[in-house]
């Protein structure tokens, strides 16, 4: 489905191979040069964006691509961060620490998914909602391992002498390297056969079963991968922030991650990146406007963006094109979000898993290219 979605947003020029390679080359050059040129604050902000873009990416694998509502992604980020802190403070080899920071959340995710994926629907949301809520008191209780409510810090990501770099530059390079590889691997995963299996499971579990795709197996797989990516994000969190406490696991952060994913664009790689940008920059922007009404502004902006772009920021280009095409006729908005869902389930009738989970009626959103006005749900 990712392939479809992204193709529909791509202009013809970008489809030529040499253009794509040039863009990739340019991005890599920018990633190498930018940290050296930018001020410290900008580097730190970009590094934070990288951390949370990876977390949103994980959430997208389980929710955007496979259609299971997960409210617990921050828990896996937190576990990854705690494992990293513990390993670093115990003086383990940093490679071993990284592997453990990925594996421990993945194993926990696997165990939870083995039980939760069987339950299906909203049950997964409820089991995952429990993770951060139980995680916070648990992290306080297990103080030998986590440092209790004081939290624990680990400094291992200072720039080595021989590089001559500043700490923020070195940290940003680490984030670019590990985050970049995570994004590339995930992109290949969701565009390959696993991605198609995820899309079928999201579209309709019964059909998936009849096609020989075990919904259970792929839901567990998606959840485990999401947990693993959460662990990667947790490791990067320690690289950049160097400190974690039970507050890291707070349920509110999980909700913000979910909102960022939808705002960025569910079921989209680029959307995950935009989600990370949203997660980090929105509080900074609203703080700049007026610190007294930060929370209120955040909620209001979130609603306004979804009002204009139900498909998330990633659907902005297609809204643009549509507006150009339909210039002067009818409403330009409409359920752009349909684009995200429609292609996943286009060949498959029935509601998505999320739809079932939240008890939504099984309406098919119209494919994004139709000229006809969207079904009138707004006017009565």
């Amino acid at each position, binding site marked *: 489905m990712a392939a479809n979605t992204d193709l529909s947003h791509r202009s013809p020029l970008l489809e030529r191979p040499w253009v794509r390679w040039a863009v990739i080359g340019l991005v890599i050059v920018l990633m190498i040069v930018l940290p050296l040129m930018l001020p410290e604050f900008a580097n730190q902000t970009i590094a934070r964006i990288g951390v949370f873009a990876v977390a949103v990416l994980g959430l997208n694998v389980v*929710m*955007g691509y496979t259609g299971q*509502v997960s409210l617990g992604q921050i828990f896996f980020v937190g576990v990854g961060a705690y494992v990293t802190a513990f390993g670093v403070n115990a003086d383990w080899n940093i490679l071993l620490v990284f592997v453990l920071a990925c594996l421990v959340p993945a194993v926990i995710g696997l165990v939870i998914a083995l*039980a939760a994926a069987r*339950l*299906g629907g*909203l*049950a997964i949301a*409820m*089991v995952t*909602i*429990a993770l951060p*809520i139980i995680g916070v*008191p*648990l992290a*306080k*209780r297990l103080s030998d391992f986590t440092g209790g409510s004081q939290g624990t810090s680990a400094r291992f990501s200072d720039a080595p002498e021989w590089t001559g770099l500043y700490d923020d530059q070195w940290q940003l390079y680490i984030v670019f390297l590990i985050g970049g590889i995570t994004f590339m691997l995930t992109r290949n995963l969701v565009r390959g056969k696993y991605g198609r299996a995820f899309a079928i499971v999201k579209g*309709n579990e*019964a*059909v998936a079963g*009849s096609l020989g795709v075990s919904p259970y197996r792929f839901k567990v797989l998606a959840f485990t991968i999401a947990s693993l990516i959460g662990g990667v994000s947790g490791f990067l969190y320690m690289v950049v922030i160097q400190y974690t406490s039970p507050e890291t696991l707070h*349920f509110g952060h999980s*909700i913000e991650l*979910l*909102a960022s994913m*939808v*705002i960025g664009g*569910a079921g989209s790689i680029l959307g995950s990146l935009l989600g990370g940008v949203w997660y980090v920059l929105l509080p900074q922007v609203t703080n700049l406007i007026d610190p007294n*009404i*930060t*929370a*209120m502004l*955040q*909620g*209001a902006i*979130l*609603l306004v963006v*979804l*009002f204009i772009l*139900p*498909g998330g920021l990633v659907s902005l280009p297609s809204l643009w094109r549509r507006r150009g095409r339909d210039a002067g006729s009818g409403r330009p908005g409409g*359920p752009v*979000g*349909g684009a*995200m*869902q429609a292609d996943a389930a286009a060949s498959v009738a*029935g509601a*998505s898993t*999320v*739809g*079932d*989970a*939240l*008890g*939504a*009626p099984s309406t098919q*959103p119209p494919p994004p290219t139709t000229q006809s006005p969207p079904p009138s*749900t*707004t006017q*009565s």
Partner: protein
Amino acid sequence: MGTFIQLVIDGLSTGSIYAALALAIVLVNQATGLINFAQGGMAVLSAYVAWALNGLGIPLLLAILAAVVISFFLGAVIERYLIRRFERGDPDTAVVVTIGLLTLITGFCAWIWTYNNRLFPSLFPLETIQIAGAVISVRSLGTFIVIVACMLLLQALFLGTKLGLALRAVAINPASAAFSGVNVGRNLMIGWGLAAVLGAVAGVLVAPQLTLTPGMMDSALVYALAACILGGLSSPIGVVVAAWLIGVLENLAAVYVPFIGHDLKIAVPFILIFVVLFLRPQGLFGRKAVVRV
């Protein structure tokens, strides 16, 4: 034995708060097919309105009634001008819309009334009575009775009135209801308004106990969601029973199971959910959904 009875009755009292919020969530879910994460936030706003009106010198009971009426219209307006745009669209987006609404309302309350704790006067006297050796506060008992009365009223509305019939028709099949001449839009607004009223009742009942803060209902919302899953989203009676069960069990576990204690008692409903859903995936009282290909 006295402690045990006391724990059970206090559990029923807090469980009643979860029940009111859970009923509101079920009401909205049945009508519009989405989970309203802002339900707790709306309840807090209602409680603040009642508190502010009371501060203006209006008697408490009257202030609460006014807040309930205002909540009804607020709920209806939110449905009409915000939620309706997302009701039949992508469910992920709709969930995030309610999350945005929660952030907005919580932020609004914090802006107007700050994050400081406010003392909310109780409807019930601060006395205790003795029942079978247990010391029970009148407030706990009163909370329980008010919620039970609300439930009975709601049940009477749904089963005994024309409006209730229309609401149920819209919930079960909006398209057919529209064909039969039921005004779907108006009924959805009423459904949201009623949900907001239930939230308001929960808000003013819990506020004296927790003192009024913008985040007051956050954990109650989590418990209410747990009750919804445990009871099955299609069964109003189920969620109430589940909410009571959760309230009582977490109280008992906090005292009688040493490892759980007060800080980890929030884990109790989820362990319960895990066990129950393993045996009955549709919830304690829910109907099993039939999947057709």
